[in-house]
């Protein structure tokens, strides 16, 4: 592009972004249109990609297209395939995008729309996109090695093993919290349960179609799958209203928890082609389709933001999650700003398909910007809802009670005026019996989406349909994650057990498989079940535990990136990874230590355990527990949560020590010491 045109275009983007931010932050009193929020985000992404992304590519990493990538070196026409960058962008985005960016921002909306928006945007540019990009780059330069292997290579074997323990712990927590989101969304919702249950036979049918009838015909199988899904969604309402079938699909929280635990164990034991793969295709279609539809919907409908810029809850007294803006906002919004899990994807299948090094900016940095955009959309959908409805859906029953009248009274006292009729009407509009205390993000987002999409297509008549469509779309990829995550957890557990007793590490050995699957499912199943029966809602504890773990994993990945930069002798630019590393360590260590040691029982695990244990010793029963046995369970669970949290804190402190030692060593060297594939490495396979 002509230099002048380019300057004009970028000046326009910058001005548009500034104007959008101005409306968000400065508008006095009157409500702000959500279009400004989305526009501000898009401008930030374009500018960050063009300038900061390019700076990292050209100056910091010095991407070199003359180096053969793993896809070229190991080309096998199957796993290692040089791939068009747009195609790989789609592949990478589908792999990183999950429920995380949908849940965190919705919970964080209790502090108002501005704090969440600012952290999503600042976080993605400074930390999230940088992490995804640089991890992808260093994996491409190391033959597509995984994060664990790279930590072992660059920071030593002990660091590598510790990182794997951390990854397994985070995986267990995330499986529990994702399953909990599904339970919260489907409790007493026969329509939802029916459509989700229907995805199982549909996936099986697709699996058989693609394996036996028409191998590899993914478009045909997915088209059949989508049509059947829409039919089940349509008939779900009739099933729910049916006097015989309705009660069969009406389930309580604990029943759903058991159903999910059994589902996880069975699904993870089936052959991958039968259920996991077809379900993954379906959810990828729905995921991309829904996000695009919602983004267009926001521009078409242009709903005003009903949530205030900031609420009184930034002081830490919020009902959705306890704790002040610093540090808890930064661990609640995990995936849309920065997510440690992405470092596993960026060192998974993606680096094996990169055609040229220069593509990593678009795929790594750009892919994360798209993920962040999903988070912004989710935040917007939660903030266009009436704040009264938002709090009715997200505050636990222990705070707002179990009737619409009680909830309306409590929430109105906080300054968000709402009537019991409004709460009940919301439930009727979406075809549910109650919307109270459906924490976990998914239902809130679904109501927000339903209201936006119904205004664009179909009006009130279709709102219930859109709501259940949104629940279906979220539950579908959460169930895929439960299946895939249980499998991944099983392999990791087998890997570890194999060190203790060799036969247990054999993935072909059935008893070892069963044992490892059982261990993995019972670990996350335990946290899930406790979350479901916890009268405080469960989400507020588990999500924060996940947030701490996920951001710590990001910290570990960025420590690796920092060490690699130093070992490459690029210490001049080390701030690119050191600044986000420092920020993540500060926020997560503060949050982790507060979660363990805070004397406020609403925040500190130990304080709550001690409070309940002291009362139980006196024979007193504290609400919301109903018996001494329940009290003792609260005590035990809080000690357990404190132990998990301590594990994360200790891990990240240990990784800091490893990275520091390696960096000091590398600084004393005159030559680069990073262990890369040499620039003119032989391309395999050509000579054979």
């Amino acid at each position: 592009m002509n230099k002048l045109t380019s300057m004009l275009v970028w000046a326009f983007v910058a001005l548009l972004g500034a104007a959008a931010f101005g409306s968000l932050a400065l508008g006095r009193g009157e409500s702000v249109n959500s279009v400004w929020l989305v526009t501000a985000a898009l401008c930030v992404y374009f500018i960050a990609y063009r300038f900061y992304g390019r700076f990292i590519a050209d100056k910091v990493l010095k991407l070199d297209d003359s180096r053969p990538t793993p896809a070229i070196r190991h080309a096998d026409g199957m796993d290692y395939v040089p791939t068009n960058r747009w195609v790989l962008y789609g592949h990478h985005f589908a792999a990183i995008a999950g429920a995380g960016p949908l849940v965190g921002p919705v919970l964080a909306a209790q502090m108002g729309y501005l704090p969440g928006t600012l952290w999503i945007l600042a976080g993605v540019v400074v930390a999230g996109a940088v992490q995804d990009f640089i991890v992808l780059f260093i994996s491409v330069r190391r033959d597509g090695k995984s994060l664990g292997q790279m930590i072992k290579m660059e920071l030593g074997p002990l660091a590598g093993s510790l990182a794997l323990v951390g990854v397994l712990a985070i995986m267990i927590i995330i499986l529990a919290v994702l399953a909990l989101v599904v339970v919260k969304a489907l409790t007493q919702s026969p329509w939802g349960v029916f459509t989700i249950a229907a995805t199982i036979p549909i996936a099986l049918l697709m699996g058989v179609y693609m394996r036996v009838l028409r191998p590899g015909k993914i478009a045909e199988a997915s088209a059949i799958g989508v049509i059947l899904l829409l039919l089940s969604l349509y008939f779900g309402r009739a099933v729910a209203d049916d006097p015989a079938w309705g009660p069969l699909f009406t389930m309580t929280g604990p029943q759903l928890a058991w159903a999910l635990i059994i589902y996880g164990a069975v699904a993870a034991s089936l052959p991958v082609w039968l259920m996991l793969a077809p379900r993954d295709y379906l959810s990828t279609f729905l995921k991309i389709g829904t996000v695009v539809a919602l983004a267009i919907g926001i521009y078409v409908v242009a709903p005003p933001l009903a949530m205030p810029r900031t609420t009184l809850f930034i002081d830490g007294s919020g009902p959705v999650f306890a704790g002040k803006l610093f540090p808890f906002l930064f661990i609640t919004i995990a995936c849309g700003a920065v997510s440690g899990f992405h470092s596993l994807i960026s060192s998974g299948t993606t680096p094996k398909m990169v055609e040229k090094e220069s593509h990593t900016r678009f795929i790594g940095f750009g892919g994360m910007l798209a993920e962040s955009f999903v988070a912004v959309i989710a935040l917007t959908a939660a903030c266009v809802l009436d704040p009264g409805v938002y709090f009715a859906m997200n505050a636990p029953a222990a705070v707002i009670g179990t009737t619409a009248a009680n909830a309306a009274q409590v929430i109105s006292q906080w300054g968000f005026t709402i009537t019991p009729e409004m709460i009940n009407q919301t439930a009727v509009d979406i075809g549910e019996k109650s919307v109270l205390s459906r924490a976990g993000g998914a239902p809130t987002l679904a109501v927000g989406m339903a209201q936006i999409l119904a205004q664009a297509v179909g009006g009130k008549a279709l709102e219930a349909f859109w709501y259940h469509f949104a629940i279906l779309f979220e539950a579908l990829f959460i169930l895929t994650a439960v299946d895939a995550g249980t499998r991944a957890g099983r392999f990791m557990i087998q890997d570890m057990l194999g060190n203790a007793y060799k036969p247990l590490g054999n993935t072909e050995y059935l008893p070892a498989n069963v044992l490892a699957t059982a261990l993995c499912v019972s670990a996350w199943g335990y946290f899930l079940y406790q979350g479901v029966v916890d009268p405080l809602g469960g989400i507020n504890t588990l999500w924060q535990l996940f947030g701490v773990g996920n951001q710590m994993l990001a910290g570990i990945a960025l420590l690796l990136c920092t060490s690699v930069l130093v070992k490459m002798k690029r210490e001049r630019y080390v701030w690119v990874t050191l600044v986000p590393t420092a920020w993540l360590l500060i926020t997560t260590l503060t949050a982790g230590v507060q979660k363990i040691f805070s004397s406020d029982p609403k925040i500190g695990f130990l304080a709550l355990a001690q409070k309940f244990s002291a009362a139980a010793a006196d024979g007193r029963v504290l609400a919301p527990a109903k018996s001494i046995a329940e009290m003792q369970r609260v005590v035990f669970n809080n000690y357990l949560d404190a132990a998990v949290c301590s594990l994360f804190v200790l891990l990240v402190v240990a990784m800091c020590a490893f990275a520091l030692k390696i960096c000091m060593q590398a600084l004393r060297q005159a030559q680069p010491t990073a262990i890369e594939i040499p620039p003119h490495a032989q391309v395999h396979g050509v000579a054979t």
Partner: protein
Amino acid sequence: MSGEAPTRAAPGSWRSRLQAIRQGGRQMFGIPDFDRYLAHMRDRHPGAAVLSEREFHAMAIDRRYGAARPRCC
């Protein structure tokens, strides 16, 4: 059907564009392209045994989902 040379459309034609779109779409979902695999085997390993389309897709799915492949949040 195994081992036949894939039919390749002339570059720039509508058919080749359609093929590229289909290939891209499949790759986005993590399904490797069978024709590409055949071409690879013909160029790099002439004479070696080649998987049938059915075997190829079965193996691709097992490889993609079978290993410890962590999923994102």
